[in-house]
């Protein structure tokens, strides 16, 4: 690794001042798991590492306007284990659980992961499907960006060199909404997905028409893919057997995967269609299960409705 300066600012003001001092050759580091690998290989050679390890107050996970606000410095592990997230957004807790290994999740942060912008990551498709936005802060103030406008290319985002992700905001879900994230892992459990698909489905009061749907895919392009055309096929339509398969086929048109050791481009494209369909089916099952749990006679002791997902 090429030598570098190492700074440990205590708050955002100091972070911005340090970034300004070193300019574009400074890199922010939080968990560091992605950055240190690249530095070991001399692919990234910052003149200064600005550690966020001493910055307090940016790792909270809380209820906000009915939705969930996750601090940019919250670790993957804290999101996966948060009782708030597991109750309100179990699909998101499950998604964060899918990332790499526990060692990585213990230190890798939500903001750091998004800023790294590897299109094979698990959280982005789920967050996009959930309609998440990110708050990005510089010395001059903050701006809020919808997550599907955040990614520009491989390792490239809309972040300016002096900006830091301070918050990820997942809005309140409508009634009759189910969510699913499926990671297709034909190789090892700790790998990135060959293809991944996230779907958030909302039915209307009759439970027979699709009021809203959001579909996003990972590992099939230079960025996570928000499959808006596939969504348009479903929105406002009655629930019918072939609808999800058709949406899967439509989603294939939005993907542009590369051939690599996880699969050929053609195979990944085919699987994109399959897994979009499966994610939609799983989201629908989630809606039905929630409805069943709600209408079930309440036991004497208060129980949290059992959701499909890994235990920690």
């Amino acid at each position, binding site marked *: 690794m090429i030598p570098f300066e190492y700074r440990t600012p205590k708050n955002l003001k100091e972070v911005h001042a340090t970034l300004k001092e070193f300019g574009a050759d400074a890199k922010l580091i939080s968990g560091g798991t992605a*950055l240190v690998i690249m530095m070991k*290989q001399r*692919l990234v050679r910052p003149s200064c590492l600005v550690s966020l390890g001493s910055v307090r107050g940016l790792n909270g996970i809380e209820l906000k306007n009915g939705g969930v606000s996750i601090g940019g410095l919250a670790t993957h592990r804290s999101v996966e284990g948060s009782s708030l997230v597991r109750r309100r957004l179990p699909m998101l807790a499950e998604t964060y659980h899918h990332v790499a290994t526990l060692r990585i999740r213990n230190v890798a942060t939500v903001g750091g992961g998004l800023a790294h*912008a590897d299109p094979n990551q698990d959280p982005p498709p789920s967050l996009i499907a959930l309609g998440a936005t990110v708050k990005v802060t510089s010395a001059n103030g903050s701006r809020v960006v919808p997550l599907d406008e955040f990614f520009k290319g*491989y390792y490239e985002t809309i972040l300016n060199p002096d900006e830091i992700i301070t918050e990820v905001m997942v809005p309140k879900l409508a009634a009759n909404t189910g969510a699913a994230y499926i990671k297709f892992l034909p190789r090892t459990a700790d790998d990135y997905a060959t293809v991944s698909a996230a779907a958030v489905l909302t039915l209307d009061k009759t439970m027979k028409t699709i009021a809203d749907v959001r579909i996003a895919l990972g590992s099939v392009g230079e960025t996570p893919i928000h499959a808006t055309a596939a969504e348009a096929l479903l929105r406002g339509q009655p629930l019918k057997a072939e609808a999800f398969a058709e949406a899967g086929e439509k989603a294939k048109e939005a993907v542009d995967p*590369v051939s*690599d050791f996880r699969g050929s481009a053609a195979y990944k494209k085919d699987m994109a269609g399959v897994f979009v369909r499966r994610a939609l089916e799983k989201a629908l099952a989630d809606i039905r299960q929630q409805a069943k749990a709600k209408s079930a006679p309440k036991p004497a002791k208060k129980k949290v409705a059992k959701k499909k997902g890994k235990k920690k």
Partner: protein
Amino acid sequence: MKFSQTAQIPVAREPLWDFLMDVPKVAKSLPGVESVNKLDDTTYEGALTVRVGPIKLNLQGKIILEEQNKTDWRAALRAEAKDRMAAGAVNGKTTMTLKELGANQTELLVETDVNILGKIGEFGQPIIRKKADAMLKEFVENIKKQLAG
């Protein structure tokens, strides 16, 4: 890694050929090329900076005009460059072929075969492919701009 780019240039074949024989002009049409210096009639040295997110490559090396076949309207440039910080090396060959479409219209076909060696090569073939493809597209657009304008 092979790439192929085609463009319709609104210029006759002869002036396009003359343009392509000006190696520094052609090299500077590739985005990221910072300098091109002549060493002899067919050899130049150059520097190219490529960025992919946080990864920056400073490639330095030689460009050789390997083929100049006016009869067949085909030229080839060979390049060999190393990254300054030893993250890897790039060597490749670009063959440019001109096809007359009309009095003021020529089709430029750019076929590139590139090998990426070392860490950058190990690291992300898909990233490199996308980046190289985008760069070559811009290369052809820049040539078009310079001749059409």
